[in-house]
């Protein structure tokens, strides 16, 4: 199990800063009046239901969303002026798995922009990629086609590609979606390790207990920022109601804050008085 680590906010200048941002696509705002600062070394989870703008917020940092008001700064520079270089890990479901690419070919893509104009990579680029693959446990799969991998391995391949670009900021879109429980915990451990080594991480997730509760800092999103802070502070029935529009119960389990959907009690409102613990188990 992962445990929340103390979240320290120093006086450093933020890596990412959203200033009263309103942004969206084709004239339609998806995010309204968002203000958010991410400092060096932060590990932030964006939590919210489908359509709450998690992915859109991630993409605003990449400069891929239309800005209608406010601004997005990465390392102090507006993304409208300079497209930032970050390590981006897309959702696995957006990948074309029939594309003829081996694990190594995908990981090396992360070095492309920093390589000279030749069909091959420099030895030091290859060495860096091999070290990253080794660390993520996929070096033995280097020549394997990307479809012939488990979900966890596929996630590692795209994480390796992001790390190969030597990013200070890592952006991940639902890195735990569609993988089994063990893989999910492995991925989270890996991200925590990277974070402890100084990589700033911003990721989206829709899993409250399995993922968000283990992160040091959570931003609850629903078109706007509902709340942000350590999970223990932001996971309140009021916040969750505002985020998900559904009634949820919050309980403590071995020092962790856990959230449960309220049991459906349509037409049986008199049973609302059941003890808290009973709601915590699903």
């Amino acid at each position, binding site marked *: 199990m992962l445990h929340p680590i103390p979240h320290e906010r120093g006086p450093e200048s933020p890596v990412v800063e959203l200033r009263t941002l309103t942004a969206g696509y084709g004239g339609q705002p998806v995010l309204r009046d968002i203000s958010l600062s991410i400092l060096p070394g932060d590990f932030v989870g964006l939590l919210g239901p489908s359509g709450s703008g998690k992915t859109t917020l991630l993409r605003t940092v990449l400069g891929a969303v239309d800005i209608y008001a406010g601004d997005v700064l990465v390392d102090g520079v507006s993304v409208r002026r300079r*497209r930032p*270089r970050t390590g981006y890990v897309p959702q696995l479901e957006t990948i074309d798995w029939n594309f003829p690419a081996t694990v190594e070919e995908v990981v090396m893509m992360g070095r*492309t922009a920093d390589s000279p104009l030749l069909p091959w990579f420099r030895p030091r680029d290859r060495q860096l990629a091999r070290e990253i693959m080794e660390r993520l446990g*996929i070096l033995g799969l280097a020549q394997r086609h990307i479809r012939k*991998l488990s979900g966890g391995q596929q996630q590692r391949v795209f994480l390796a590609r992001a790390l190969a670009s030597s990013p200070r900021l890592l952006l991940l879109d639902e890195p735990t979606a569609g993988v*089994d429980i063990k893989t999910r915990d*492995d991925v989270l451990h890996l991200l925590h390790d990277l974070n402890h080594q100084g990589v700033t991480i911003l990721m989206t997730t829709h899993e409250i207990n399995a993922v968000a509760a283990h992160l040091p800092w959570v931003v609850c999103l629903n078109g706007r920022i509902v709340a942000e802070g350590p999970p223990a502070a932001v996971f309140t029935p009021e916040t969750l109601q505002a985020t998900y529009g559904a009634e949820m119960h919050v309980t403590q389990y071995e020092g962790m804050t856990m959230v449960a959907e309220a049991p459906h009690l349509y037409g049986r409102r008199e049973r609302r008085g059941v003890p808290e613990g009973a709601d915590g188990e699903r």
Partner: protein
Amino acid sequence: MFEPFQYEFFVRGLVAATLVGGLCGLLGVYIVLRRMAYIGHGLSHAVFGGAVVSYVMALNFYIGASVWGFLSAVLITLTTRKQKIGADAAIGIVTTASFALGVALISRYKTFTRNFDAALFGNILGVTQGDMAAIIGVTAVVGVVFFVGYKYFLFNTFDSEVARFYGLPTGWVDTLFSLVLAATIVVSMQVLGVTLIAAAIVIPPVVARLLTDSFRSMVALSTALGASCGLAGIYLSYYLDISSGASVVLVAAALFIVVLALTSLRRGRRPGVGALASREHSAPGA
């Protein structure tokens, strides 16, 4: 067996078809993987329109047709950036309109001396020294572009949006690709014909994809297969006395059928072996 080689026109046609076949095979990899297989068919029709226009306006065929083809390709790329319009629809609109313009002009100016049958179906006998120079020039330029930009084209083809996030100038990469594609189609017209270019672009990469899972190998294989089909197709067309473009395409199609049969057979004989093996290997690392 070596009888046709005494004719200069035959040797010239053979070299032209080999180079053009290789070019189409190389570009085809990127086109097929981006699911724009129809663009070859569409652009060749668009270029036909450009060819007629440049004839009517008394411009150089190569310059007029290339500019026209390039603009069509850029127009298609721009149209597909609008998320509501798919690439297939964009190709259909832009290129058919362009082809229609060519047809309209031909029917209006009935005094054409140029043989547009050759443009439609390909005529290897009509490859002049000027055509030959154009083919060699385009081959050299395309070769340099793909040598230098190999990694960029790979990432941009795999996932253009993410490539942009990783700092690649994807707009320039797309524009450069449109340029070399237009040039390739213009020089291929004489050999393969407007109506048959599509197959020369699509079949070699599809066959190569059946044979390999690696991008690098696919690029090499597809180029080699395209060139071989061009060579074999022209050689056969001499003996069978059939149209050069049709011959090249039929050789490629036959190759596709053979490879498809062989790869299906191989999979059929060892049912599930591939799937089992990958699951076994995946367990420890997961």
